[in-house]
């Protein structure tokens, strides 16, 4: 019963809240969608915290994503022990880097007067969930070795079963490793609280900056556009409104 709650109900609740909540927040209160950076108030400590934390998480996120999307490729890569070692050590290092950064960020937030002023209660929740997530992940990686291989063979089927609405929880609920259970549960918790926290900022990571033109000019309406439009009589709407 507990397994059912933790590995079926929680994931679906979290994903539903994430999807509906994020879209609702973006559409109804876009103003609140921001990274609310505090670098302006304190920059030096932020550097040592933010850089290792974000880059660590950035890489780990894509690592998990690849293992989820292309499990066979990961298993094939791990076919040679050297490559397996490289992958595991690299992943563990990024995990440590994220943990190190997070510790510094928490320390900075709790001890810097100016940063205390801009700290909300949800920021503390965010820190608690992230700490649980990263520490449990590192414990899993250390105690249940070669996770990159068994993730692909063992967790990917479970995650996929969630996404195809046919949850298979036998494997995951028979796991004895507490840290792994915690890692999975806190991962879904993290997804569930995205709409209520500053986590939303990673949803608006500005990739489109790469292909947009540098300068942006916005017209109330373009006479030029309407003048040249052949579809004017058909109620053509100029695109820049």
């Amino acid at each position, binding site marked *: 019963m507990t397994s059912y709650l933790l590995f079926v109900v929680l994931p679906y609740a979290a994903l539903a809240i994430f999807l509906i909540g994020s879209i609702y927040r973006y559409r109804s209160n*876009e*103003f609140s*969608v*921001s*990274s*609310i*950076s*505090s*670098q*302006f*108030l*304190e*920059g030096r400590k*932020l*550097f040592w915290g*933010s*850089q290792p*934390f*974000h*880059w660590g998480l950035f890489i780990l996120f894509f690592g998990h994503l690849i293992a989820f999307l292309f499990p066979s490729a990961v298993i094939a890569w791990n076919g040679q022990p050297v490559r397996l070692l490289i992958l595991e050590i690299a992943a563990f290092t990024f995990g440590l880097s994220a943990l190190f950064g997070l510790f510094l960020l928490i320390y900075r937030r709790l001890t810097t*007067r*100016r940063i*205390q*002023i*801009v700290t909300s209660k949800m920021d503390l929740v965010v820190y608690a969930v992230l700490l649980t997530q990263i520490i449990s992940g590192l414990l899993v990686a250390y105690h249940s070795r070669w996770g990159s291989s068994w993730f692909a063979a063992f967790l990917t089927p479970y995650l996929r079963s969630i996404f195809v609405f046919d949850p298979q929880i036998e494997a995951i609920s028979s796991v004895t490793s507490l840290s792994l259970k915690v890692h999975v549960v806190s991962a879904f918790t993290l997804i569930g609280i995205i709409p209520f926290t500053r986590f939303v*900022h990673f949803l*608006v*990571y*500005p990739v*489109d*900056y*790469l292909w*947009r033109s*540098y*300068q*942006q*000019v*916005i*017209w*109330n*309406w*373009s*006479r*030029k556009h*309407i*003048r040249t439009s052949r579809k*004017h*009589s*058909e*109620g*053509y*709407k*100029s695109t820049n*409104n």
Partner: protein
Amino acid sequence: MDVRSQVSMVFHLDKCIGCHTCSIACKNIWTDRKGAEYMWWNNVETKPGTGYPTKWEDQEIYKGGWEKNGDTVSLKGAGKFRGLKNIFHNPHLPVLDDYYEPWTYKYQDLFTAPEGDDQPTARPVSLVTGEHMDVQSGPNWDDDLGGSPDYARQDVNLNQLSEAEREAMFQLERMTFHYLPRICNHCLNPACVASCPSGALYKRGEDGIVLINQERCRAWRMCVTACPYKKSYYNWHTGKSEKCILCYPRLESGQAPACFHSCVGRIRYLGVLLYDADKIEQAASAPDDRLVDAQMDIYLDPFDPEVIKQARLNGVADSTIIAAQKSPVYKFVKLWKLALPLHPEFRTLPNLFYVPALLPTMATVANGVYDSTSKSLWNGVESNRLPMKYLASLFSAGDTGKVTEVMKRLMAVRLHRRGVTVGDLNSAEISQALKEVQMDGSTADEIFRLTSLATFDERFVIPPAHREESIEMLESTADVKGNTGFGFKRKPERGL
């Protein structure tokens, strides 16, 4: 030719008395809010001085503006690759202490302090943390050369000068300063817009005002770095950047922006310039010694029939073209060549131009006697108190010839008017001065008039915003034609 209109500005520095009324008008209307206390969308600096934020002109520190990169320009401290790389921590972002920590006083203590032998005081408290603080600096900490060894001598523009010239500037008899009011330049090639990863910043097509969409801003902070004038500010409370909006709600209803309206010295002029948007890249990437000329070439003659034709084709309203013809900015900048952009070497093509100050003549000290007499009425431009190199560093990317020419023109107007009003000058001297700058008496009179006697409506020629046409922002005209009145935003159908 892609003709567009730009609301642009001229500040006449000779008339600025440094009263900060403009700053206060702006502050009271726009930035008297939590998180914005430290922002001065309009601020007045003393030059020489380090300004606000401290040493903002030094792009080796702040990495603002554009750099010439072959035939084009690239952002110095931001850009696509660099922006996304530095998104987790922007190494060039100025922090609060580079501006100043805003504070207020605990006035209530004056009333509630218990009776005692000492006078109650209102101690300063930080507007960020609310705690007692020692005030270390403020937005005008170096006003009127206050603390010159620490501030004025650190002025970045002094780098152009030799050690001896610098020493000479700071001798008591020679010392001088003038004010430099600054607002957002609403550039033609805005670095802030180009640097914004989320695309929150944009330039308005109709009048060229540069704005930040507060809904869109995600606090990536790149605009603060990219603006070389440091006129994009980060609101630490809302987590959004903000900047001067040129009081567009006022402009749209035909009123001058608050800082312009309130200017006591009447130093400010506002009007439309028509420009050729096709030439922006070319002008922004001109070599240093051509920068000012290249920018001037962008601005078009609003009386030229070809320009008018192209402007109309581009959708510039007739009323805007008329405003451009009456524009005081066009006269100062293009016709009379009296106004120069601030730091054109940042390559953003700023639309705020400055008429440099003709400072008092230099005196000499001999045997302890301060002697300010001179052979001619006003000593020549050459013996200006501020070295031309210094002014050139401010206004012409180091080209002393450009600044000298402007100063000579200003001097010619002055001599001409002295001849008219007092008549104690040799007329040959006057006509020589006018001839040297290829100016005739009537132009000099016109310059004098617009400088000293201009009325409100001559100083601020604001093009109508045509808000009556804003229906076009909602619907295509063709759609609306079939409907009654202004039509409907959604189809008026029954049911869900």
